[in-house]
Each structure stands twice: as C-alpha cells, then as structure tokens.
C-alpha cells in the first residue's frame, strides 16, 4: 500500500518544528513502527536525516513507543500501543499525520521523541514500598480478596508511556499518578505508607508542571492499557483524606 505521511520534524528542543510530507510503500503485515523503519531506511539512502522516534520492546509492554497518530496517542486502535498497531488497519492512499506527545512537562527532544523523565520523578517521589518486607514469602501467605487483587493488577498494568498526559487537553498526569497510587494502596504491603506516598507523589506531579484534571476522560480512552478514571477518584479521595488527616 502507498501511504502519505505528515510527520513532525524538529531539529532539537529549541528549534521550531513543522509537519513534513513523505511517501512510503508499506505492507499490511508491518507494524506501525516497522513502516517508519522502512521510511527511515529510505531517508538514510537518500542521505537525509532519519526520523527520530522512541521504541524499545515492540511488544506493547515497555512504554517507550509514543507518537500521536491522527490526533490520538498510540493511534486509533483501542487498548493498543503504537508498536502493536498494524498497517492492516490502513488502506492504500491514506494520509496519516504523526506528531510527538504534546504536554509542557514532556518537552520535545527531537522530531517525535519527547523527554518523559517527569513520570520517573513522580515514581521517585514515593511510588514504591520502602518498609522492610523481608524474604520473599509464599504467594498466598498474605490473603487478598480476589476483586481487590484484580483492581490492583489493572492499575499495575500502567506502562508509564505518557499517553494520558498527551491525550489530556490540560496535559495532566493524573491517570498515571492515580494508577501508581492505586496499585500500591490497594495491597497490604503498599497500604502501610499510602498516606505519605500520595502527598509526596501529588506534590511532585504539581512540581513537574502537569496540568490539573478536569474530568474530560480523554486519558482513559487513549490509554493503551485501558486504565480507568476510577483510579483518579481514588487518588482524589486518598489525597484529600491524607492531607486533612495528617498531623503536618
């Protein structure tokens, strides 16, 4: 199939970028990133600068790939990362617009690559269990109700790709932060520090320059792991009760 691509090209963080038109011959069995690989090989053989984009596992689990395809982070397919989006969803002659994530806290490094360290900093602020939990115990030593375990697991499937902040009209990181909060606070090991954790992580999230949640819901639509905004309500609830109940 012959495709027309409108790709955001930007030399560096401070340069002014623009959309450039490319033609590429793709196969329906290719993944979206493989299609970009083909285009890049073409660009390299033409002695032009290949398009920079993030990718790593190409299995939909690492959260490296990003891209906003026709206005949607990770493209049009529900619950799918860019690397798992296949060209069979497109037809001959289609024009596809590819842009980088847009959020102030995710500055563009080059072309389609954005710096997403802000999410790492939110995790570093408290997204872990620091109490001593000793040796690995038997999997069933701590009883956890099935439904609760499932909720914690659903939240834990977040791969931290940044699609939520990219989809949000406010560039808010609430879905990501809430998923991290929920998956820890629902389980007994994470429950212990949940009050200080939620306050630290929200403070860091605000410091990174993410916007505020206005309950638009675009994040959960575009999340490749289909994380629910239920978690955002949990984050609000936990933050308010932790802030009001704390002694400091």
């Amino acid at each position, binding site marked *: 199939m012959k495709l027309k691509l*409108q790709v*955001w090209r930007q030399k560096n963080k401070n340069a002014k970028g623009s*959309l450039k038109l490319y033609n590429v011959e793709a196969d329906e069995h290719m993944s979206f990133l493989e299609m970009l690989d083909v285009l890049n090989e073409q660009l390299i053989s033409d002695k032009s600068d290949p398009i920079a984009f993030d990718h790593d596992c190409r299995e939909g689990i690492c959260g490296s790939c990003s891209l*906003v395809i*026709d*206005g*949607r982070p990770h493209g049009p397919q529900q619950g799918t990362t860019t690397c798992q989006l296949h060209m069979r969803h497109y037809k001959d002659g289609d024009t596809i*617009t590819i*842009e980088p994530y*847009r*959020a*102030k*806290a995710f500055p563009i490094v080059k072309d389609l690559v954005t710096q997403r360290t802000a999410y790492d900093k939110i995790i570093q602020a408290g997204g872990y269990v620091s109490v001593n939990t000793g040796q690995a115990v038997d999997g069933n030593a701590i009883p956890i109700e099935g439904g609760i375990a499932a909720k914690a697991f659903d939240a834990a499937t977040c791969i931290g790709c940044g699609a939520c902040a990219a*989809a*949000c*009209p*406010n*560039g*808010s990181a*609430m879905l990501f932060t809430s998923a991290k909060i929920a998956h820890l606070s629902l389980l007994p090991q994470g429950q212990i520090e949940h009050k200080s954790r939620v306050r630290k992580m*929200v*403070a860091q*999230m*605000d410091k990174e*320059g*993410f*916007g*505020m*949640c*206005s*309950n*638009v*819901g*675009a994040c959960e*639509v*575009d999340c490749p792991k289909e994380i629910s*905004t*239920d978690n*955002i*309500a*949990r*984050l*609000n*609830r*936990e*933050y*308010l*009760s932790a*802030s*009001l109940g*704390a002694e*400091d």
Partner: protein
Amino acid sequence: MRWIINLLTSSIGLKLVMSLTGLFLCTFLLAHLAGNLQLLYNDGGEAFNLYAKFMTGNPLIKFISYGLYTLILLHAVQGLVLASINKKSKGSKYAVSAKGNGSWASKNMALLGTLILFFLLIHMGDFWWAMKRNNLEYVTYDGVEVKNLYKKVQISFKEWYIVLAYMVGLFALALHLLHGFSSAFQTLGLRHKKYTPIIKGIGYIFSILIPIAFAIIPIAIFFSQN
C-alpha cells in the same frame, strides 16, 4: 495553618474548591428557581413582590447572599485562572485533533462559565441593581408598601432580545452543569459502582430540567404580552 495553604494550592486542592463551590451554586439554583416560579402566579405579582421584599430585607438572607456573591466570584475567578494554567500546561496544540475523546462541554467549561458570567452581569444589572437603586415603583398590599419588581420583570421580558439573551445564558448553564455536576463528585473522590450511575442520572436530570424551568419564566411572560 501552612497545611491549609499547601492543601488549597495543590492541584487537587484547587479542584476541591471548584467542586465544593460548584455544588453550593447548584443548591442556590434550586432555591432561586423556587422563588422565581412565583412570577408565574396569576396574582398580579403579589406573591413575588412580597418574596422579593423578604429576600432583600431579612438580615440572615442578606448575610447568606453576600456569601453567595463571594462564592460565585471565587468559582468564576479560580475557574478562569485554572483554565489558563491548564492551557499553559498543555503547551502546544496538535495539528490534527481527535474527535470523541471527552465531551465538548468538558473541554470548554471556561468558555461556558464566561458566557454564564456575562449572563449573570446582564441579569443582575437588570433586576438586582434595579432593586438596590431604589427607582422601582411601589405597590401596596394590606397597607404595606412594597417595590414592584414584578412589573420590572414584565417590562424586561417584553423585549425579544432580552428573552434571547436569557435562552443563551441558560443553554450555556445546561451544558456547564452537564459536565460540572457529576465532575464535582469525581473531584471529591466520590465514585462508586453502585452510586455513580445514580449521581450521573441525577446530574443529567438536574442539568436539563433546571435550565428549562428557568427558561419557562421569560418565555411565558414574553408570550403573555406579545
């Protein structure tokens, strides 16, 4: 007291204020509607004029009304400030914008709020200010002199452009409430598999019925005179 400032200046605290003031303004809408529906009584305005006198004369209600003005201003000013912070947090816009990711109202709450604020200025300028400025005619009921706000309402709603302005304002209010009502509960963290559908249902009914009930008043008065 540092903790209060920390809480209220955090992203979630700022939203908490929007949520609580918004819900309070919803209860005000109910009270305001109940009072104003008296305009439709077929008694030449007696019930409404006596109600207007009570609402402007009672010291407790006066105290509450100043609280209300403060909260309207807080909700409006903070809403606009947050919308501008959010716009900056987004940075730049996409060349192609996707459709279907969130309702139009949810993405345009500041615009709708601004429309409502303009409507409020027209509305208060017409009636609230007229009541304050003391240039209304008086009527006498059982020997008590009362300002005839009813007549002022009749005169205003005789003009089609005023009725139209009210329709625009109320339509913006309906859209603002369609997102705002259930959103306020989400911000408070009140989300539950059993109760959220009920809250959303009440929100939809509230957002549509209240503006329609308000809209009936100018329309009915307009057609009774034209």
